[in-house]
């Protein structure tokens, strides 16, 4: 038994603390390097998940709905290749494996892995591939290997060079951003000082024509001013002042006046308060100027360079990984030709009596060096892989919340470390269609096995500790708090599946405790589009089953209406979402909470809707359990709740079921309900989040108030409020944007500000074209938009930008310092600034795809 599996079982069964392996810093660094070499953009959480996987014997990747589990698994498997480790991905669903397989195929080319399946043509393909490799390891091997090594080396060097350049550019961008931030803060400080000075004294003392010619402010003026203040105090107290000191003070005043053009000193030579305030303003100005001078690069040019280099690196990375894999296969294949031939034979045989003896002759350590990436359904592993401990460095179990414990143990046995991927907040074993074994029966089995065992656990305790098979998936088994295992966990937090309001509901209702989800669909193409409708149909539960006829009728009516184009007419919500009759119909699913209603829906759909039409919308009707792992463009939720029934809250409001049911729609959800009992708190909260208040079917006996979620309505909306501008610069930028809009010959451009998106605090401005739904975010470089979490301004900024870019945002950055030089350049109609402004407008035009922009001199907006 592998060390990890033994520790896992011992830990869970004995409740004793278990020390799992935590790898050292060197390995962490290696993983970091491997992550750089793979051609996939990853979020911080995705990176964390991969680091956890390689640095601990056990780890857990929690993937809420639509958050890129397969993407993360693919990246993890690619890092295995770079680290020259072997990895086995298993799931109980072929579909889940196929998603990762397709992604790996895109990265590595056609024959990248061994797929362990039952399909004859797949097995034939694998046999052929192994045969080709055996051939390549024969005549001409040395030349081939030498060529491959050269190609790999070249590809690696080219990639590393690009990565080094990216790193260099990012470093200089980071430094410049820090300076920009410092400049912004110093500038704001200067403006505050200046305003305070102007309030108390004369603004003209700090006029820009005076400040702009100031030399660098040497530090000795602080001492001089201290001395002057001392002399002034002595004068005030009527003390005798040594002549020498007085003379020195006078000289200081003359020097200060001359140096800083402070002519007012002639009138008020001994006003220390004014002198101090004046000097503070001068210092603030000087600090801002110094920071600005430190910014030696053109930020946007560097950003573009980085972007171009990243595109180049992705391509180079693909080339590198492909040559690396081919070299590994060829080199190791040559050294283990006999094993390859036997492996090839294994894909021909199925009869256990022949397979097993052959497996015993194969050196699997050599085989996994040749083929480091393996994928397969758990049930098929035994046909190709022997039950040998630790064949693979890592086993990854996808959809772990639906994998029962006995099913996965043989896969774990074959690996040294395990990663479980799933989500304990979605349905577990019940969604896997598991035959639910009666607890009495299971208890008998438990007692049979544990009878007479020293330190035996009784069945009740086993259930409570999530050890029993009928209640607990492998995910429950490993991550339940009762196990006390403390497995490293990374929760993926970028949601890409559903329309913003649907995703926000999921995030707020189910993942708030985990920090919430970044809703990556909060982009302009989804702006203003409805994604939810509540339909109350009335009706009662039928006498012969748990269904509400009116809900069934309405759900099928909606499907027919979609099929006939009724729901897709001009101006309809679905039309706005991009669907059209008859060629672009949405896929449709109907969820029923009760099995009886599901059966009713199925039977009626089969009899009332033509099979070809059902196929045309990929119609799937099921319970939430059956829907886990599936999604559709349009979902019709039905509940089977009538006005004449008791409300089984435990059933309807089981969070995992409700989470799955409400998170299956990509674009639109119709919620069809017979009646809403007052005790249906979760339901009421759900509808309330989209702005609906169902009529309650009974007077409330339950005095528990529905605690509302932050109401988000059924569509993504952004607003424009000029009062929300946080700085003078933002107000100036606003004027420029209004000017830009004014120059357009139509009114299709809309401006929004303080836009919350993708889990980010806010975007300063968003310019949106109603016709094309294109948009561009305008971000001011300098001010912090970030939560205080210990990160530097530049790293937080770059992370924010990469999140926004992954969501598809176009961003135009406006460096503050380019707009301010001894006052706002815009105000002075500075000819250099005109170029900057035209460039800014040009960027907006490019991102918005505009053609009607009229160039010309800027309009005087009378900002003074």
């Amino acid at each position, binding site marked *: 038994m592998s060390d990890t599996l*033994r520790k896992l*079982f*011992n830990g869970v*069964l004995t409740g004793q603390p278990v020390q799992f392996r935590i790898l050292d810093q060197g390995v962490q660094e290696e993983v970091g390097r491997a992550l750089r070499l793979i051609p996939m953009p990853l979020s911080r959480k995705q990176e964390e998940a991969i680091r956890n996987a390689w640095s601990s014997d056990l780890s857990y990747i929690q993937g809420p709905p639509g958050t890129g589990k397969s993407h993360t698994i693919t990246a993890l498997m690619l890092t295995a290749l770079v680290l020259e480790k072997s990895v086995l991905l298993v799931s109980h669903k072929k579909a889940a494996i196929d998603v990762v397989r397709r992604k790996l195929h895109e990265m590595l080319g056609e024959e990248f892995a061994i797929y362990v*399946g*039952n399909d*004859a043509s*797949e097995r034939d393909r694998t046999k052929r591939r192994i045969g080709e490799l055996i051939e390549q390891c024969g005549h001409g091997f040395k030349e081939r290997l030498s060529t491959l090594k050269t190609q790999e080396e070249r590809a690696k060097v080219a990639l590393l060079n690009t990565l080094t350049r990216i790193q260099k550019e990012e470093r200089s961008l980071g430094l410049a951003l820090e300076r920009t931030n410092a400049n912004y803060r110093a500038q704001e400080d200067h403006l505050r000082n200046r305003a305070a000075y102007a309030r108390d004294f004369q603004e003209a003392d700090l006029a820009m024509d005076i400040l702009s010619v100031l030399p660098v402010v040497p530090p000795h003026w602080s001492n001089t001013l201290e001395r002057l203040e001392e002399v002034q105090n002595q004068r005030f107290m009527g003390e005798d002042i040594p002549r020498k000191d007085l003379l020195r003070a006078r000289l200081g005043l003359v020097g200060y006046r001359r140096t800083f053009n402070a002519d007012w000193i002639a009138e008020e030579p001994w006003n220390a308060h004014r002198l101090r305030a004046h000097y503070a303003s001068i210092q603030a100005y000087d600090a801002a100027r110094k920071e600005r001078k430190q910014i030696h690069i053109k930020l946007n040019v560097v950003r573009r360079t980085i972007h171009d280099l990243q595109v180049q690196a992705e391509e180079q990375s693909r080339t590198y990984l492909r040559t690396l894999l081919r070299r590994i296969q060829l080199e190791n294949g040559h050294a283990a030709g006999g094993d390859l031939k036997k492996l090839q034979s294994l894909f*021909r*045989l*199925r*009869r*256990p*009596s022949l397979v097993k003896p052959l497996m015993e002759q194969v050196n699997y350590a050599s085989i996994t060096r040749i083929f480091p990436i393996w994928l397969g*359904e758990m*049930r098929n*592993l*035994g*046909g190709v892989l022997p*039950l040998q401990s630790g064949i693979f460095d890592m086993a990854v179990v996808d959809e772990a919340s639906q994998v*029962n*414990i*006995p099913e996965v*143990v043989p896969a774990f*046995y074959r690996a040294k470390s395990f990663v479980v991927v799933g989500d304990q907040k979605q349905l577990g074993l*019940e969604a896997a*269609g*598991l*035959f*639910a*074994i*009666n607890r*009495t*029966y299971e208890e*008998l089995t*438990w007692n*049979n*096995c*544990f009878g*007479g*065992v*020293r*330190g*035996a*656990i009784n069945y009740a305790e086993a259930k409570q500790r999530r*050890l029993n*098979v009928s209640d607990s998936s492998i995910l429950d088994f490993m991550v339940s708090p009762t196990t006390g295992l403390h497995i490293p966990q990374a929760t993926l937090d970028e949601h890409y599946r559903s329309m913003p309001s649907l995703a926000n509901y999921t995030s707020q209702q189910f993942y708030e405790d985990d920090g919430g989800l970044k809703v990556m669909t909060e982009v302009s193409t989804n702006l203003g589009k409805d994604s939810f409708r509540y339909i109350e149909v009335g009706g009662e539960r039928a006498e*012969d*089953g748990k*269904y509400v006829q009116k809900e069934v009728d309405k759900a099928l009516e909606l499907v027919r209406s979609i099929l006939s184009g009724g729901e897709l007419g001009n101006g309809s919500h679905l039309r706005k979402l991009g669907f059209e009759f008859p060629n672009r119909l949405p896929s449709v699913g109907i969820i029923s909470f009760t*099995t*009886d209603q599901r*059966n009713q829906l199925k*039977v009626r759909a089969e009899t009332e809707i033509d099979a070809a039409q059902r196929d045309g919308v990929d119609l799937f009707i099921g*319970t939430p*359990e059956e829907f886990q792992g599936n999604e559709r463009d349009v979902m019709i939720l039905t509940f089977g709740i009538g006005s004449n029934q008791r409300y*089984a809250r*435990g*059933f309807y409001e*089981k969070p995992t079921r409700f989470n799955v049911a409400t998170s299956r729609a990509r674009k639109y959800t119709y919620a069809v309900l017979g009646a809403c009992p007052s005790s249906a708190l979760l339901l009421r909260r759900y509808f309330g989040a989209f702005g609906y208040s169902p009529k309650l079917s009974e007077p409330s006996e339950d005095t528990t108030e529905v605690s509302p979620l932050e109401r988000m309505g059924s569509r993504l909306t952004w607003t424009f409020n000029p009062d929300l501008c946080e700085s003078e610069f933002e107000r100036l930028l606003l004027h420029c944007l209004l000017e830009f809009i004014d120059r357009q010959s139509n009114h299709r451009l809309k401006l929004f500000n303080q836009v919350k998106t993708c889990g980010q605090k806010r975007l300063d401005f968003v310019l949106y074209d109603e016709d094309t739904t294109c948009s561009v975010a305008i971000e001011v470089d300098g001010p912090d938009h970030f939560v205080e979490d210990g990160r530097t301004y530049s790293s937080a900024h770059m992370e924010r930008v990469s999140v926004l870019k992954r969501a598809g945002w176009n961003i135009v950055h406006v460096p503050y310092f380019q707009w301010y030089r001894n006052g706002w350049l815009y105000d002075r109609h500075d000819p250099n600034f005109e170029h900057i402004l035209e460039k800014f407008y040009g960027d907006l035009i490019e991102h918005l795809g505009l053609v009607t922009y009229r160039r010309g001199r800027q309009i005087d907006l009378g900002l003074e």
Partner: protein
Amino acid sequence: MGAVAAYMEYLREMARKIAYRGSFLKVIPGTARMPSRYLDWDVSHISDDMRRYLLAAEQDRQAKDGRALFLGIGLCIGQTQGKSRNMKVAAPLLLVPMNIESEDDAGKELVLDIHWKSIALNYDLITAIVEGADTVDEEDSMGQPNMLSPAAASAVNAVELRLDQVFQEPGYVQRITDRRFVEEIVDLLMAEVPAFRSKLFKAPGTYHKEDLGRYERSDKLLWFNHRFAFMGNNPGELSAYEALNELCSIIPNEV
């Protein structure tokens, strides 16, 4: 035996219980896309008909992922009232997975492996018969489907123990293929589970495949002590059971 070994044994037992599920309720005649390739089965010898049958079954299995050949022991056929509708049933009471292997590359010589030790009750059939009568309400069970009542569960347990015991006996293949063995099992279920008693009727004659339509139209659920081969979905966790069985023999020596 330590806790780890005991737990492995428990997992092995549970793997066997959950291996067969989901698609064994109406195994004949199958569909146009997934024909079940029914064949009356006589284990005493392999006839030419049977060879042809195995060849066709093997081609089917190769063409469609996830299909496998089974021996069905005992046949329930007809209709049974579920919770909300009548369900058509044509299912064996016991299932034994079989494997066909080509002895040569040309695939002309076929060898049949019958995995007697993987014999299992048809849980789909049991669920269908007890559904409504011997299950716990869906809403009361928090939506967990197909919860068996304690009476049904303990009867299933008794049958499972019987199946386990039979392998301790010498000549267990003859014992299992003896018609009296399956008759004992169905008698036990009819005695212990009210739904079996009220829904299942022992047919007076023998099963004739030509009468399939007539049996299906019957409003009763008929029992035939009959053996047949058919193609069905490959049971997922059977490999887990076999692997755990192997592990159980390793672990006590390791722990």
